[in-house]
C-alpha cells in the first residue's frame, strides 16, 4: 500500500499532497515538512530510499523519492510494494504529467493542482497501484478532458475571456518567473512500458 504521495519543490512548498491514510491536517503539514527536511539533506547521487520518518508508521514504511529539477516526488509505501517498482511508478507518473501538460514544468503543477490530482487518480487509487501502462493512463485522461470540454463549452468560454482580460498588462503575472523545465528523461529506468 502507498500511504502518501507528496510533491514539493526545493523550498518545501507543497505542490501535491495526497494521503491515503487519515491524518489530521496539522499532522499532514508536519509530515510534509519533516519529509522535506529528510529528503533535502540528501545528495542527488545517493540512494532514493529512506527509512520512514517518525510520523508515518514505523519500520514497515519507506520513503521512496525522486528529484526532478525543482521538484521532489515522494511516495511513502509499506513493505508490500517493491522499491524499484515504485521508483518506476514515479517515473511513469512524471512522464504522464509530461505528456498531458506537454513539457511539464513546476508552473503547471502550481496552477493546475486539480488536473495533477486527476492524473494521479488514474495511476494510484486509494493507495493501490491502478495502472502502470502510460498509454492507457493518457488515453483515459484525454477521454475525460474531452468529456469535460463537451460539457463546459458554454460556461467555460466567458470565464476564459474574463481570465484573459484579467491577465492583460499586469506586471505581477508570473510568466516571467523562470523556474526552469523539469528534466524528465532519466535514462535506464523504464522497465515498465
Amino acid at each position, binding site marked *: 500500500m502507498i500511504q502518501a504521495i507528496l510533491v514539493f519543490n526545493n523550498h518545501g512548498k507543497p505542490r501535491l499532497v495526497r494521503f491515503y491514510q487519515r491524518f489530521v491536517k*496539522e499532522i499532514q503539514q508536519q509530515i510534509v515538512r519533516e519529509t522535506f527536511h529528510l529528503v533535502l539533506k540528501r545528495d542527488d547521487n545517493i540512494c532514493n530510499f529512506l527509512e520512514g520518518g517518525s510520523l508515518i508508521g514505523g519500520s514497515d514504511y519507506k520513503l521512496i523519492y525522486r528529484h526532478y529539477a525543482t521538484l521532489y516526488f515522494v511516495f511513502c509505501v509499506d513493505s508490500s510494494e517493491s522499491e524499484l517498482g515504485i521508483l518506476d511508478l514515479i517515473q511513469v507518473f512524471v512522464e504522464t504529467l509530461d505528456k498531458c501538460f506537454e513539457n511539464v514544468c513546476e508552473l503547471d503543477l502550481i496552477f493546475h493542482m*486539480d488536473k495533477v490530482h486527476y492524473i494521479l487518480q488514474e495511476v494510484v*487509487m*486509494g493507495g493501490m497501484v491502478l495502472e502502470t501502462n502510460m498509454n492507457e493512463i493518457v488515453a483515459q485522461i484525454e477521454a475525460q478532458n474531452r468529456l469535460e470540454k463537451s460539457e463546459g463549452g458554454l460556461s467555460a468560454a466567458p470565464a476564459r475571456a474574463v481570465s484573459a482580460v484579467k491577465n492583460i498588462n499586469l506586471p505581477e503575472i508570473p510568466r516571467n518567473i523562470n523556474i526552469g523545465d523539469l528534466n524528465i528523461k532519466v535514462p535506464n529506468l523504464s522497465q515498465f512500458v
Partner: protein
Amino acid sequence: MALKMVKGSIDRMFDKNLQDLVRGIRNHKEDEAKYISQCIDEIKQELKQDNIAVKANAVCKLTYLQMLGYDISWAAFNIIEVMSASKFTFKRIGYLAASQSFHEGTDVIMLTTNQIRKDLSSPSQYDTGVALTGLSCFVTPDLARDLANDIMTLMSHTKPYIRKKAVLIMYKVFLKYPESLRPAFPRLKEKLEDPDPGVQSAAVNVICELARRNPKNYLSLAPLFFKLMTSSTNNWVLIKIIKLFGALTPLEPRLGKKLIEPLTNLIHSTSAMSLLYECVNTVIAVLISLSSGMPNHSASIQLCVQKLRILIEDSDQNLKYLGLLAMSKILKTHPKSVQSHKDLILQCLDDKDESIRLRALDLLYGMVSKKNLMEIVKKLMTHVDKAEGTTYRDELLTKIIDICSQSNYQYITNFEWYISILVELTRLEGTRHGHLIAAQMLDVAIRVKAIRKFAVSQMSALLDSAHLLASSTQRNGICEVLYAAAWICGEFSEHLQEPHHTLEAMLRPRVTTLPGHIQAVYVQNVVKLYASILQQKEQAGEAEGAQAVTQLMVDRLPQFVQSADLEVQERASCILQLVKHIQKLQAKDVPVAEEVSALFAGELNPVAPKAQKKVPVPEGLDLDAWINEPLSDSESEDERPRAVFHEEEQRRPKHRPSEADEEELARRREARKQEQANNPFYIKSSPSPQKRYQDTPGVEHIPVVQIDLSVPLKVPGLPMSDQYVKLEEERRHRQKLEKDKRRKKRKEKEKKGKRRHSSLPTESDEDIAPAQQVDIVTEEMPENALPSDEDDKDPNDPYRALDIDLDKPLADSEKLPIQKHRNTETSKSPEKDVPMVEKKSKKPKKKEKKHKEKERDKEKKKEKEKKAEDLDFWLSTTPPPAPAPAPAPVPSTDECEDAKTEAQGEEDDAEGQDQDKKSPKPKKKKHRKEKEERTKGKKKSKKQPPGSEEAAGEPVQNGAPEEEQLPPESSYSLLAENSYVKMTCDIRGSLQEDSQVTVAIVLENRSSSILKGMELSVLDSLNARMARPQGSSVHDGVPVPFQLPPGVSNEAQYVFTIQSIVMAQKLKGTLSFIAKNDEGATHEKLDFRLHFSCSSYLITTPCYSDAFAKLLESGDLSMSSIKVDGIRMSFQNLLAKICFHHHFSGLLKLWPRAAQEVVERVDSCASMYSRSIQGHHVCLLVKKGENSVSVDGKCSDSTLLSNLLEEMKATLAKC
C-alpha cells in the same frame, strides 16, 4: 489605469478561479495569511449562490487551500452538493475535494450513500470511475456495508476501466466491512483470470494485500498464482505474485520446493532489476522456510549471494541499498555465505549515504565471530568519533551494544575490553541511549563474576570524573550511566581500591543536579559503601577513621534530605537517622560494622526480564475478580512491569534546593566555570559544524567554531579499549603458538614424511579461549514458569478482522446487504453464479448439499482442472526430493506423510500395476477428501488402518484436551481369518454417489507362502450389489489387484450399490486364492460375511448450529430414543466414540475463527449431526446421567433411526 478599473469591476462580476487564487497568493507573499482569509470569505459568499458552476469553482479553490493546511471541513456539505452535480466537470471537483477532506468522523458523509450509489450505476463510465476513486479515499464502515453489493456488481462491468477500479476498491471495503470478504471472494478470484491485464493486475494487487496480512487463508490459491507467474509477462503483476509467494512459503515448505526452479530461471533470464530483486528475495524466503538439510539448495544460495554482490557493487546506490537489505535476510539462515563478503560490507560502512551505512550496520550484526568482534567494534568506534549528526551516532551506539551483547555475550572473549568499550561510549555527548549503556554495565557486572573487580575500578573512575554530571539535564542522557556506576560501586564495594575516595565522589554537592532516580541510587549505595568502609576501619582498629567517615556522612547527607524528589528525600532521611544513631554508638566505642553490613548481606541474582510475567497464576486465583466491589469512580491503574530505569519519567526534577543561598549559588557557578574550562567536552554545546544546506539569512554571520575531532577524546584516567585489541592479539598469538607447538609435536610424532597441507592453519572460533574464566550467570526464572511466550497480538489491528477462512462454502446467512427497493435492479445484473445473492431458501441444508453436488459433478467431469485447483494434489505431484522432507511444524505434516505413503503404496504395487489402475484411484480421491476435511478441522473420527498407513491416531479435536485420551482405535473390523490370511474391512459412505458405499478390505498374509490369484466373489442381494468390471457376470469373482508376499498386507477397495439404506444388510462372500511356497501351490478359500451397518451409510458432515436448529424446528423428522446404563466412560470419550463409530460430528458455530468446530455441549449434553448417503438428516441429542447415557434421535426416516440407535446401543454397551 482605465484597464485596471475595468479589471476591478470584472473581478467583482466574475469570481476568481483556481489560477487566480494561486496567482494572488504568490503576489501576496508578505501578507499571505491575510489574503487567504479574504479569499476564504469570498469563497463562503460563492458557496451561498445557487449556481452550481460557482460552487464547484469555490470548492476547487478550497481543495487547493486544504493542501496548504487550511481547514475546509466546514464546507463538507457544499462539497456534497458539488458531488451531486449532474455534470462530470463539477462532479469530479466535488469528489476530489471529498477524497481530500472527508474521513470517518465527517458527519455529513452518511448523506452521500445514495448519491454514490446513483453515480456507481451511472451510464457514463467516467461518472462511475470518479465515484469509485473518491469512495476509495473516504469509505466508512457504513458506506462499505451499504455499497458492497453495488461494487460487487461493478466487478463484472463490461468496461475494464470500471472493473479494475471496482476490484481495487474492494480491498478498502473488506477492511471496513470484513463480512463482505467471503461473499465477494469467489468473484475476486475469478478476476485473477480476467482478459484485461489491468483488471488482472488489480485483482492480484488486492489478493496480495489481503494475503500479506493473513497468508494461511490464501494458500489454496497458490496453484492459480503459480500459473499466473509462469504465464504473465507484466512485470508489475509478476513482482506482486512473487512477493506473495514470499509470504506463503513459510507456511508450506512444499510450495517453496516447487517455486525454486521457475524463480531461478527468472533470475537468470530477466533484465528488469526490480523483478530480479524480488525473485532473489523470494528465493531467500523459500530457503529460509526449507529446513537446512537440503544440500542441493546450496547452489540457489550461492546464486542469490552472487547476484546480491553484483547489486551491492553496482554504482547505482539504490541497488546497493537493496542488495544489502536482501543480504541481511540471508544472513539469518546462512551466515556463512554472507560472511565471505565481509570486505564488501565493511566498505559500505564508509559510504557517504546514511541509508546504506545503516543497512551495512545491520549486516555486521550477524557477521561477528569471536575472532573478529574486536576488530569490527574498533572500526565502529572510529565511526562513532567521525559521525556527524546524533541520529547516526546513536544508531552506531545501539549497534555496538547489540553486536556485543547478542546471544548472551557469545562472542565476547574479554569482558575487560567490553567494559572499557562501554566506558568509552560514555563520552558521547547528546546521546539518548545512556540507559542502554547503563543496562549493559549492570548486566555484565552482575552476570560475569570475574569481571566485577575491574568493573568496579572503572565505575569508580566514572563516578569520579566530572564530565558525566554536565549532561544531567537531558532525559535518558549519558548521565544514566552514573546510575549503573553508583550501583556497581555500592554493591560490589569489597572490590574498591579506594572506597573512601569514591564515597566522597558520590557525596559531592554536584550530585544533587542529577535526576531524582539516580540520586536515589546514589543515596542507597553510599550506605553500602559506608558499611564496607566501616568494616575495614574497624577490622584495622582505626576507630578514628571510622568516626571520620561517619562524620562525613552526617555532614553530606542533608543535601539529599533537601531534595525535591520524594524518593531521594525519604531514603536520605532514613539513612541520616541511621548514621546519626551509629555515630552515637561509635562515641560509646561500640563495634557497629557487623550490624551495618548485615543490612546488605546476601547476593543479588539476576532475574530474567520476563520472569514476573511468567509466574503462573495459582490455581483457583481469579485475578479479574473483584476483591471488593469497586467504587463507582475508582480509577484503575495500569500495572506494568517496571523497567529497570525510570525511563518514562516525565517530570524534570528540580535541581536546586530552593533555599540555596546566594553565596552557595555563586560558588557553584564558579565551580562550574572552572569545570567547564577544564572539560574538553563542554564545547560541544556550541553549534556543531554540520553542513548547512539551506541558506537562511543571518546564519552565515555566526562564526562557527571548527572543532578538531581528530584527537580522540580521552576520558582521563581510563584505559582505552584499543590497548585491549593489541593485548588480545598478543594473547591469541601466544595461544596459537603454544597450540601450534603442541600440534607440531604431535604431527611430527605421527608422521614425519608427510607435509602439512596448509601452511596457515585457520583459527576457528572454538580455538579462542576467553581471557578470563567467564561465568555467565543465567537469569533466574520463577518455578513453573510458563514456557510459551505468547506474543499478544494487537487487538486493534484492522487486518485481524480479515482473518477469514475462504475455503469454506458460503453459508446462507452470509450475503451482502441489498437495498430492498432495488431488488429488481440487482436481480437483473449477471449474478446468478454467485451463491450469496441467491434468494433465501427455507432449507439451508439442501442448498449446501446442492452446492457440494455441483462441485462434485465438476470434479468428475474435469478431473484435470480439479487437480490444478487442489493444493495438496498440486503440491504432492512434485517429484519427491531424494532426502525425505524434515517434518516442519506446519499443520500439513500428516498430509506430507499421506502423500508419501501414497507414493510408497504405488511403488509397492508396481508389480500388478496394470490391474491396479482402477483401484488406487478412488482410494486416492478418498484420501484427498479426508485430508481436506482434516485440515478444516471438521473431522471427528480417528482412523488407523492396521497396515501402518497412518501415524498414531491424532487426538480427538473437539472438547477439552486435558481429559484422558482414548487409546488409538481402528475403524477396521475383522471380517474373517484363517491360517493363511486375515481380512479386515472398513465400510464408508461414498461422497460421490447417492447410494454407494466403499468397502476397503485389508488383506494380511500370515503364512510363509506367497498368495496370488486372489479373487473375491460376493453374492449380491436384491438390495445390495457389488460394482463389477463391465462385461463380467454376477457369478464371476472380482480379482484382487495385487499379490501378497509373506507378512505383507495391502488394501483393496470395492464399491457396492445399496438401494435402501434404512436397514442393515449382510452379504456372504468368499475369497479364493492360491498359496504358493517352496513345496508347491495350493488352492484355498475363506468365507466371510460383509456387514453393512446403518452407521456405515452415514457421512460425517459438518453442520452449523443455526441450520441444526432450523432442522429441528421444521417438524418433518421422526423421533426415537434409547438409554444405556452402566457407563463409566467420560462423556468426552463417549462422544468421540459416537463420532468415530457412527460418523457423527458436533455442530459448527457460525464464524468459527480458527475454522475449528466446537461441539455444542452444555456440561453433559451434546448435539450431534450426520447425514446419510441418501440425504437423510440425523440429529442426536446425547445426555449423560450418572452411569447412564440417553440418546434422543431425530431423523427423516424412522426405520433408519431406530436401526441406528440399536447399533449405537451396542457400541455404548461396550463402554
